């Protein structure tokens, strides 16, 4: 069958070539202009000649029946761009990399790219909980990187990925790979945008009305978590959690008692957050795991060591001690439904907190136990987990290779080359 098709295709090619030769011959003649015009209007006559030539060629060379090869491909109709459904739990959103614009959408079920949400470099993205829009907190200049700076939340339609509107804001931080500099609250009605100029503040935006509301000074704190009915909490340089009541005319900021050392054993500012339960899981450079329940007065539980939870010595700040440490640029991902934290771990010394992970540790946070260690074929720099019941772990490296693993078995399902090397986001409840 294969040979027959091949023969038929060969014959068709000869036929088409013959037809083109005929056309060239005709074009040399006095009717050239007229002929061109006819061609421009319709290709029917050309198609007819091509078909005739192909039939002749088939008769000469033999092959598949003439009727099957005689139907040429039809020209493509004018089509609208593809549209998307509302974001699904199997989708991931990958920033393409440092100073690279755009967020690529992939479906972890198929490993296929679904589209690109436009975004300036060093921007941040959030997903409308109603699934109707993607929000990009970004900064652009009127003349490329020169001219007047314009900071805004750009709103894209989730189905068409076309621009819906822009909401001007007075500024935002420029930094790579952070999940908590742009957060949504109140079922997606309010947005908070972190700013550093270099004094730190938060810009509050009413997304429903498409309006900037106010700037909240937030000295010494960053990395925000939405707190229902209150506003947000943030980590602070004195080792405390600040909680900001944003509703009143004057924002009210209260601080918890300091519970960690911001300079000696800092909490990674990419952490796990269950928005529905208002429960946050923090991880420090040495591997201490803190859980906190947020609210008007947050409560922080006693920490435990992830290394001890895996049966190895707890991490220390002491120099010269080689041990397993958490690390990388986006080094942990929290699966909300199961309460498992997936952490990129590496062997090294203290202050190696950006080193690539060589293993994924699956920590059952409530049980304080590492239930699985997954060795990686290639060291990874970022990790995310889909919030599906049968969750998938996604890791990428700085070369942009993305690997999808089954979170239950640790088995590699697929990989995508040049997927993007920036922050990975998932659809979160």
């Amino acid at each position, binding site marked *: 069958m294969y040979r027959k098709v091949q023969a038929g295709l060969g014959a068709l090619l000869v036929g088409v070539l013959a037809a083109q030769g005929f056309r060239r011959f005709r074009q040399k003649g006095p009717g050239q202009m007229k002929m061109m015009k006819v061609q421009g209007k319709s290709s029917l006559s050309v198609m007819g000649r091509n078909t005739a030539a192909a039939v002749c060629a088939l008769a000469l060379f033999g092959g598949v029946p003439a009727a099957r090869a005689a139907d040429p491909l039809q020209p493509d109709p004018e089509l609208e761009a593809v549209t998307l459904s509302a974001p699904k739990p199997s989708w991931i959103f990958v920033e393409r990399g440092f100073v690279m614009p755009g967020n690529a959408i992939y479906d972890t079920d198929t490993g296929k790219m679904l589209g690109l949400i436009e975004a300036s470099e060093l921007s941040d993205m959030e997903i409308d909980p109603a699934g109707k829009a993607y929000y990009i907190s970004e900064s652009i200049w009127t003349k490329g990187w020169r001219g007047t700076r314009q900071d805004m939340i750009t709103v894209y339609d989730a189905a068409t990925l076309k621009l819906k509107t822009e909401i001007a804001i007075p500024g935002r931080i420029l930094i790579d790979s952070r999940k908590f500099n742009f957060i949504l609250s109140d079922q997606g009605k309010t947005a908070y945008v972190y700013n550093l100029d*270099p004094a730190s503040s938060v810009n509050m935006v009413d997304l429903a009305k498409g309006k900037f509301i106010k700037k909240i000074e937030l000295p010494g704190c960053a990395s925000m978590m939405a707190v229902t009915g209150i506003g947000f909490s943030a980590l602070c340089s004195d080792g405390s959690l600040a909680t900001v009541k944003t509703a009143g005319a004057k924002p009210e900021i209260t601080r918890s008692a300091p519970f960690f050392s911001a300079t000696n054993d800092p909490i990674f500012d990419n952490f796990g957050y269950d928005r529905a339960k208002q429960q946050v899981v923090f991880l420090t450079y040495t591997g201490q795991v803190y859980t906190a329940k947020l609210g008007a007065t947050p409560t922080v539980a006693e920490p435990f060591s992830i290394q001890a939870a895996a049966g190895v010595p707890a991490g220390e700040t002491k120099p010269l001690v080689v041990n397993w440490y958490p690390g990388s640029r986006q080094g942990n991902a929290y699966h909300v439904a199961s309460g498992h934290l997936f952490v990129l771990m590496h062997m090294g010394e203290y202050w190696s907190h950006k080193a690539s992970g060589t293993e994924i540790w699956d920590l059952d946070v409530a049980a304080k136990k590492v239930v699985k260690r997954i060795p990686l074929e290639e060291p990874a720099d970022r990790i995310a987990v889909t919030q599906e019941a049968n969750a998938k772990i996604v890791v990428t490296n700085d070369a942009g290779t993305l690997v999808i693993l089954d979170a239950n078995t640790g088995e590699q399902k697929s990989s995508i080359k040049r997927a993007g090397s920036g922050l990975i986001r998932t659809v979160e409840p």
Partner: protein
Amino acid sequence: MKTFNPDAMGEKLLRRFAGGTSRRGILSRLGLALVAAPAFPLLPVSRASAAKPDRSPEAKTAFARSAQTTDDTKCTYWRYCAIDGSLCACCGGAVNRCPPGAEHSPVSWVGTCINPGDGRAYLIAYRDCCGKSYCNKCDCDGTDRETQLYVPQLNNDVIWCFGTTSMEYHCSTAVLVGTA
């Protein structure tokens, strides 16, 4: 509008310090320090590390142990213990100078690095060079005592192009400020 005013902050700090101290108090503390000083070499920690020129724990990070003083186009150059980004020394600039056409940011994040030549700790200001597209050569990421965003002055991921005409990041320098 409330703006960041380091002068006012400095004045406030000094006034508070002056208000809470006295000359006699300082003299008595100095005297106490002088009397107590000879006791310190007797401590076991000091004796164990007495042979080394620097006794601070910083000297013992993995970076500090392999740092060198001769090639500032390599990530192992001693001043780069907390740098992140392209080295300006590889982009047409120098360890402490911007490449042609780029603008030095007046503010920066900082690091404390050990010079293996004299064993001393120095304060290094990582001043970004701005206004040109990313150089993308000799990318280094030193992480000694580098912290997270809530301590921005010790975080090396922030684009530190503040106060420059353009905020586009080109490369990073490592300017020596003084002994730490």
